């Protein structure tokens, strides 16, 4: 499960230069063999490092963003994706908001 948080300068015309901020949090498990080595095979995994979101748990993640002084319009997007395997992921929930800064 992956949480992506991005902030974009939507006044910028070039998409390659729009990104102002990005961060990611990942919830997953690391399977280990008895020598503590990371493994993928179900027969090899004897223990785990549990980095998943536990039942009935609510996790709070906080992101502080400071943009440049000439930035006026920022679009902030939060996306939570669930990967059923390493390749296939779906966006479960997302939220996008745009803010105008008038700080002069």
């Amino acid at each position, binding site marked *: 499960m992956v949480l992506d948080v991005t902030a974009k300068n939507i006044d910028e015309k070039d998409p390659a230069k729009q990104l102002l901020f990005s961060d990611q949090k990942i919830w997953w498990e690391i399977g280990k063999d008895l020598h503590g080595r990371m493994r993928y095979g179900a027969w090899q995994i004897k223990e785990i490092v549990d980095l998943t979101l536990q*039942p009935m748990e609510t996790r709070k993640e906080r992101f502080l963003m400071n943009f440049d002084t000439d930035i006026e319009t920022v679009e902030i997007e939060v996306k939570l994706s669930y990967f059923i395997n390493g390749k296939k992921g779906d966006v479960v929930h997302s939220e996008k908001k745009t803010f105008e800064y008038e700080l002069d």
Partner: protein
Amino acid sequence: MNVRLLFSITQILLLITFLGATPLSASQKEAKSIDELVAMFDESQCMECHEETHSEWKNSWHSKAVISSLKGMHNFIAIGLKKEWETPLTKAQIMKCLDCHAPTVKYASEELAVEIGNMIVTAHKMKGTKQGDAAKKELAKLNVGCLSCHNIKAGAVARGLHGEPAPGMIYGPEGEDADDAHETEELVDITRSSFCMQCHGKYKAADGETIQCNTLSGSYQNTYVAQGGSQTCQDCHMKKGHTFPGGHDLDVVKEGLGLQVEIVPYGHLPGTLKKKVKDPKKWIPSAVVNVFIANKTGHRIPDG
């Protein structure tokens, strides 16, 4: 009729009754081909009366429990057994996968079980070829079918109490009379989480080997139940009947995960950041984004 004859008839009747309840494994021969195995656990009759349930199951991952997991099982055989353990493929070894992915294989002969194992390797390794596709087509006949849950595995968590499953008996939560279609027995086990946990958790093979495809039962038992959770696996995963939706169903994932976002835009005090800005005398456009991610399910996320 003399007393002696009456006694003999009674003995014969008792013997017939006893044979009728003899465990499947003891009374039935071992299948020598996949078709023979499928015929032994003929589920085509089930859909005649349980059309809707069968249709739900057909759309479930249980119906493709072998062909959807070819890669993992191939790796166990081709890497685990062959290269790491240097152990021959045997029925006991392949049952470490198939006891859950195709429980009927328990009633296959040693030769057939090994053949199925080799077909798994072919189906994965030669995917897209005539030989690989033919192997996959055969393997598609194996799955977690009606009798896998309603007979073979039904009483397995309390085998000492229930004994081996009776041949042809359908174990269900209510034990409703099915007229002459089949015998039915009420078995509460099938409504309990521990029933699902036979496979949806760390698996312990007959020789003691642990196989860890997922640990759902671990987080369910040790975290959810430990915190007072009382829902069963079936409470959530049978809301859509026998399709058993889970991580593959986006609606179910959406239901199980909550997301709340709070964004606080503000102007940061000029000249107080280490970060270089174009005009150090100006207020710095800033934002604090608080994200709350809630796991509303009875198991950890993600899991298998």
